[in-house]
Structure formats: C-alpha cells, structure tokens
C-alpha cells in the first residue's frame, strides 16, 4: 500500500534579486532566510525517499492560452520541459541554468487523471505544458544538487475568473490522497505560491499584501481547521490577493486533517512569505 511520505507548501518566488530590486535590502534578506528554510526542508524531503513528487501550482498565463483555461490540469507523459521565454520576467530568469527536462512519474499521473475522471473530477490533461517558476523554483531549492524525484505537475487555475472553489480544490486533494493510498508508491506532495500579494489582481495595488488575512490562514492551518478553510470564498481570496492559496487548498486535501507546522512566516509588505510542513509519516 502506498503512503504520503512528505507534505509541504511554500511561496514560489525564491529569487533574492527580484525582491532586492522591487522591495530593497529588507526584501532580499527575508527571501534569503526563506530559501535557507526551504533548503533545510529539502533534507526532510530527500530523507523520506519519495518515488514521486506531486507539485501543485498555478499558471501565470504562461502556459495555457485564452483558447482554454483548465480549472485543474494533470501533466502526463514521460518528461517535462523547463519553460524557456525570450526576455523572461525576473521571476522566470531564476530558472536559467536549471536542467532543461525533468522526469515525470507517468503511472501516478495517469492514476490521478483516470481515477479522477472516474470519480467525477473533470481534470484536463496536458502532454506538453512546460514548467515555470511556480514549479521549478521550489523544486530546485528543495532538491539542490540532487536530481528531482519524478514529478507529477498539477495546475490549478488561480488567476482567470471563474476559478475553482476552495472546497473543490480540497476535494481534489482528497482524491489525490485516495490514489496515493491505493497505489504502491511513496509519494511526496508540495503546493506553491502565496501568501497574499497583488490584491484583486490590480496593477494599482501591486506592492501591497494582507498580513491580517495571512495570519488568519496560518492559524487555521496550525489548528487543522480545514472546514473554515474550505469555506473561503472567491471574493475573499481575490480581495486579499490570496489567489494562489487555491494550490494550498489542494494540498490541505491531500494531508487530510493534519495540523501544519510553520517553518517560516515573514511579512514583507509586498507579499507575505511562508513555508509550512505537515506531519504525515
């Protein structure tokens, strides 16, 4: 029988130059502290010897065009490419120099997709979507010089309204947990992004966050109060700039009722940075 051997969630712009430029020395120092914590979490991840690493993250309108925006999408196939963009935004410049391709865990991805359809989750599937910083910045920081475990990238539409609900994201996570339990693999899972930034996706509000809301989310995760988290509305997530918390909602479903241990929480002003682990073994 399979098991979930590691679970964590973390902010995904792990790039000191970006915060140095846009926030200043205080921002650079804070993200450097977060990076050190995520590197330390990577030691726990590797010690758990996962056969596969599920990565739950969002598309920054890099991958899926407006021809179709999947609510949730499973990346299938044997390998996945690192996204290459000409004149990439600073977030994605952080990927320069990383490996160009990563192995996928095809069997686990197929089970999540096919058993999901059977169970009523109309997941999209992609054979070709590449990975941007939302996936590779945390994966490369966690893994360091070690090769990444075979990945199962899972996209959540966090930014193009109407997004899936927090409740539906949690239910998708419960489905992934059932697939893991039924399968033969040791599985690690992470969610990335957040915490609050870019409230209401408004250019005028870039540079602000909602620390009170983020402290509330952290408290609910520490107490394991998942019902309160499932009840979060699209309006709350939009107004506070917590769109990417939908990724975390999927992971909360994967870990079930477990309580979170906060490894890092920092209020930067532009964004609140966090890294959280769950006791799953």
């Amino acid at each position, binding site marked *: 029988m399979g098991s979930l051997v590691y679970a964590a969630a973390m902010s995904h712009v792990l790039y000191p130059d970006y915060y140095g430029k846009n926030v200043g020395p205080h921002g650079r120092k804070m993200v450097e502290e977060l990076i050190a914590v995520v590197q330390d979490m990577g030691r726990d991840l590797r010690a758990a010897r996962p056969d596969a690493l599920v990565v739950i993250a969002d598309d920054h309108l890099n991958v899926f065009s407006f021809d179709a925006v999947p609510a949730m999408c499973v990346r299938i196939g044997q390998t996945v490419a690192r996204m290459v963009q000409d004149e990439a935004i600073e977030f994605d410049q952080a990927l320069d120099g990383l490996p160009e391709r990563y192995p996928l865990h095809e069997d686990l991805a197929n089970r999540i997709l096919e058993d999901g359809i059977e169970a009523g989750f109309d997941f999209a599937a992609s054979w070709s979507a590449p990975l941007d910083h939302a996936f590779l910045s945390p994966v490369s920081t966690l893994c360091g010089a070690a090769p990444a475990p075979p990945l199962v990238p899972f996209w959540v539409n966090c930014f193009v309204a109407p997004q899936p609900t927090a409740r539906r994201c949690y239910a998708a996570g419960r489905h992934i947990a059932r697939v893991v339990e039924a399968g033969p693999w040791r599985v690690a899972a992470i969610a990335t992004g957040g915490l609050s930034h870019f409230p209401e*996706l408004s250019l005028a509000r870039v540079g602000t966050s909602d620390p009170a809301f983020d402290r509330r989310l952290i408290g609910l995760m520490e107490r394991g109060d998942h019902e309160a988290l499932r009840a979060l509305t699209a309006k709350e997530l939009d107004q506070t700039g917590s769109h990417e918390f939908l990724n975390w909602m999927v992971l909360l479903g994967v870990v079930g009722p477990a309580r979170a241990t906060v490894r890092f929480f920092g209020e930067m002003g532009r964004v609140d940075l966090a890294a959280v682990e769950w006791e799953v073994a």
Partner: protein
Amino acid sequence: MSRYEVNVLLYRLKKDPAYRRRFRDDARAALAGAELTDEEREAFVSWDARRLNELGGSLHLLISIPGLGGH
C-alpha cells in the same frame, strides 16, 4: 469575468515576438482587425497598462510582456 479580446491580444503580445514588433512599430495598424471598444483600443495604443488592467486585462500578462511589462 475578464475581457476575452483584451487578454487574447495581451497573450499574443507576450508570446509572439513578430506581432510584438509590429505592435511597437505601429500599434494602431497591429490592432486593426481586433474586436475592441474604442476605449480598449486607445488604452492599447497609448499603452496605458493601468487602464488595460481596469478593463479586464490580466495583471500577469501586463507585467510580463517583454519591453512593455514592468511594474
């Protein structure tokens, strides 16, 4: 809901370097076939990112179009 046509154009500006060059050279000509309101068209031509955002243009596109992005 975001405005479809505005975002389709922003996405094309981000992903299609040849179209981006045409837009930089002559924005009005590059937008000739697009189904935009006058207000949307003027926001593109004057590259008023704030206004495009208010009109439904995605923040993540507006901050990441090479040579036009930035925030």
